[in-house]
Each structure stands twice: as structure tokens, then as C-alpha cells.
């Protein structure tokens, strides 16, 4: 299990290659990359600031990955989440899951992402023409997480 909460950007190709290279039993890697959009709730977004809870954020994500490992037969999981100042187009998060077969990798990747969005202590603040605002939690994210 790899969990990193960092300010720096990440290289998706390199991370996915690493996930495969570590284990010859891997037959499937599913990945999700989240990035900053320039439009949210009808507002132009010029910048985004991501705040986190150092220590707890890593712990919470590790707990989510552990739970995924209990629900599905996985080889490995990788989550990288950025914090700090970001701009539209920047990568925010990478979730990648390796397994012997694709079904487990697809499902676990979506599960981890749904749980990260609703359980990991991270908060987004957007800045645009209309000033600053904290992004509000969405019911649709809670509903997505409740499916599991």
C-alpha cells in the first residue's frame, strides 16, 4: 500500500509502471486521476487551495485502502493526493489499484475514490472572479459512497 499526501505534482505513467513492476501476479491496473476544473457550480475558477489535516489525512486514506483490500482480492493500492495551491488543469489525486483480474481493480478503484471524497480530511477553497469560497460537500458524493 502506498499513500502519499504531498504538495508536488506526480507522474501517472511512472506511478502505474511502478505498481505493475512490483508484482508479477498483477494482471490488471485500474486508475483514476482527478484534476482541477475551470468551472464549478457555474463559477469560473482561477485557483484552488487544498487544505488537509497532516497525519490524519494519510491515516484516513490508509484505512480506506485497507478496507478495499478486505473487500476485494487486490495486489496493491496507491493513492497520491495533493494539497496547497493548484490551478485549473492541475492533477489533484491519483488512485490506482492492481489485481489479478480487472473486476476487482475497477471496483476497488471506484470504492477508494468515493471514500476519499467523503472521509479523508481535505478541503477545497476556490478563488475566481466572484472572490473566494469554500467548496461545499455534495449529497451526490455521500450517495456514491453509500452504494458500497
Amino acid at each position: 500500500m502506498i499513500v502519499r499526501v504531498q504538495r508536488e505534482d506526480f507522474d501517472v505513467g511512472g506511478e502505474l509502471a511502478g505498481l505493475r513492476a512490483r508484482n508479477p501476479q498483477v494482471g490488471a491496473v485500474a486508475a483514476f486521476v482527478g484534476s482541477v476544473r475551470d468551472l464549478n457550480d457555474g463559477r469560473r475558477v482561477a485557483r484552488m487551495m487544498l487544505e488537509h489535516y497532516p497525519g490524519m489525512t494519510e491515516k484516513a486514506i490508509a484505512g480506506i485502502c485497507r478496507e478495499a483490500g478486505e473487500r476485494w482480492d487486490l495486489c496493491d493500492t496507491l493513492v497520491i493526493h495533493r494539497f496547497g495551491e493548484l490551478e485549473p488543469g492541475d492533477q489533484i489525486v491519483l488512485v490506482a489499484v492492481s489485481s489479478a483480474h480487472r473486476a476487482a481493480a475497477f471496483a476497488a478503484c471506484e470504492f477508494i475514490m468515493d471514500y476519499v471524497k467523503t472521509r479523508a480530511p481535505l478541503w477545497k477553497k476556490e478563488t475566481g472572479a466572484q472572490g473566494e469560497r469554500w467548496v461545499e460537500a455534495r449529497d451526490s458524493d455521500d450517495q456514491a459512497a453509500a452504494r458500497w
Partner: protein
Amino acid sequence: MRIKLLYFASLREALGTASEALEIPDAITTVDGLREHLRGRGPDWDRALGSGGAVRVALDQTIAGPDSPIHDGAEVAFFPPVTGG
């Protein structure tokens, strides 16, 4: 009992503080008791930590419920619903 308090995101801004060390009366034994105690600090605190706003609490970096027991040396964090990912 001495505890460490942390505040994040919109709550940190509303309260004007990110962290503090606090000596609390022994009568405060739960997360909810602590929240009530802090609400008594003034209108900003009452509003930010009141039942009207959605406030999450973590005790020692694990999500806590209102009845979770506070202990000496605890790290208690207050924050709004999370919006990462």
C-alpha cells in the same frame, strides 16, 4: 485535563485560530461536552460550532461521535464536511 485543539478550513477562518492547547474542567468528559464548552466562548464560537452548522469532530485523528470520551493529552479537531478528491 489538558488537550490540544485543531480547527480546519472554514471553521479555522470563522474562529480565527488554527490550534490551541487548552486546560478543560474535569466535568467535561465527552466530545459533545467539549463542543458545548467552546460554544460558550462567544457568538462566533456559538455560530461556528452550533447545531445549525455541519461540524465533524476527530479525536486523536479518528472521526469521533458526540459521546466519544475525551482524555488527558487528547488531540481534538473540529472541521466542516470534507471536500477532497
